[in-house]
């Protein structure tokens, strides 16, 4: 049972129990919905993006497993105030950490997001960890379509 604690770290459990920036926000100008058909996770990301491309507000709604809920919750905290370009860069590193080829990067430079490094050992759960991210990117692209992890 040691292994499993690497996946379900205290911070992940905490955020899954009491997600931050959760619930509809009145102030947003971009939204997107995401769905993971495998486990039935649903997420909706809302973003307030300024004219110069900064994520000023970010929140989410939905229901899902601990990994997907914590992923959405933690990313909202990490990304607030970042530029759209930074968001995309961070997502690229995050993806590399949880699902990239070759040696596992330990999540350097990812700050809090490094708690998801354990996901790498559980390929079936990668989609749970990335659902909120894909949905966020969708929202930022201004495409109002539901994304699916399939």
């Amino acid at each position: 049972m040691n292994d499993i604690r690497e996946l379900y770290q205290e911070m992940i459990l905490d955020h899954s129990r009491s997600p931050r920036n959760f619930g509809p926000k009145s102030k947003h100008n971009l939204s997107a919905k995401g769905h993971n058909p495998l486990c039935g996770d649903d997420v909706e990301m809302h973003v307030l993006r300024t004219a110069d491309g900064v994520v000023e507000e970010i929140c989410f709604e939905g229901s899902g497993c601990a990994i997907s809920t914590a992923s959405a919750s933690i990313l909202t905290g990490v990304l607030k105030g970042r530029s759209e370009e930074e968001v995309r860069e961070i997502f690229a590193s995050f993806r590399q950490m949880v699902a990239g080829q070759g040696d596992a990067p330990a999540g350097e430079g990812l700050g809090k997001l490094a708690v998801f490094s354990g996901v790498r050992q559980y390929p079936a759960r990668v989609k749970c960890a990335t659902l909120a991210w894909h949905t966020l990117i969708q929202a930022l692209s201004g495409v109002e379509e539901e994304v699916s992890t399939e």
Partner: protein
Amino acid sequence: MNRTPQANESCPSFSNLDQVRRRFPCLQQEIHGNPLVYLDSAATTQKPTQVLQAVESFYQEDCSNVHRGVHTLSERATIRYEAVRAKVAQFIHAPDPHGVIFTSGTTEAINLVARTIGRDRVSSGDQVLISAMEHHANIVPWQMLCEEQGAKLVIIPCTDDGDLILDDLQSLITDRTKVVSIGHVSNAVGTLHDIQKVIAFAREKGAITMIDSAQAISHLPIDVEQLGCDFLAFSAHKMYGPTGTGVLWGRKELLDQMSPWQGGGDMIRTVTFENSTFADVPWKFEAGTPHIAGVIGLGAALDFIQEVGFETIQSHEQQLLEETVTRLDRLDGLTIIGRPKNRISVVSFVLDRIHPHDAGTIMDQQGVAIRAGHHCAMPLMSRFGVAATIRTSFAIYNTLDDIDALVAAIESVQEVFN
């Protein structure tokens, strides 16, 4: 325990079931350092050695196409393939082996019926009746048909316990009901439905009746004559046989009237560029090279089931089921979904504040394989107000030790989360 093992003797003793279990090579392994506890047989069962050997021996010794050669191998393959047809007929007490059509599985069998006789019989304003507890395979083909024909899909509702409400059948089955297609056993919560009652009502109104026996076929004896249905479908892989093979049984008179489904080789008598005449039933419905090895494997699976015997299967699986329900009921923070009056081999449950998918990952670390998800029954999940459940399902090779492992795994999930 000094019994002489005899092939056809029913064997309620555990030492004998131990021997049965040892015939499943896939079960003899460790997952993450723990012995595999396979509790996902409703998704697919493991395969006994005799099935694996039958498949292999076809490729090693008799590999050739069926119905297409005068050479020895083709003759052997054809004989083996057709022998399984007869065996299937006997297994489900069908009067005529020609009513047995080999398909790729239950899904294809249901689609075949919907696309042929369904299309012929159902027109605008008509109705197709299914239930609230169907697998998507017994929903979507009918939905597509209704959409196409301008017909209405009508649903038999279910109770909170997961029993179908059959008191209003009279109003649900009308003169406009052309097809009634019902699951035999629910793959999501394990209910054994009173299909006999539904079939009787449907027949009275002249509707075609189809039974999805995917979850019943390996657990209880089936007699199509006694049931009185027109069609019955099941998959080999849920009854100890290979994947990619299944059966549609149909009443011969109906099959004879039905137009073919897919066109191609094997299903024709003569072909010119102007037109074709079709082969007789059942070959009319078996276009192209079939899954010969799969069918031969299915034959071995039928032998396996008959060797163990339904009496043994039913008493053993019932014991596992009762023990599971009792043990799970004792756990705090666990709710069993569905309390059907008659249940077969499946128990679904949820854990307070723990998503089934998380539970599935943690249980897998202990070697316990369960299914976490909506079980291809999304309408039923919404009926019960859950997005997903944890499902444990049994087969003849499961043991009481497996249930100990299940309970321990659930407790460790709760430990991680609480």
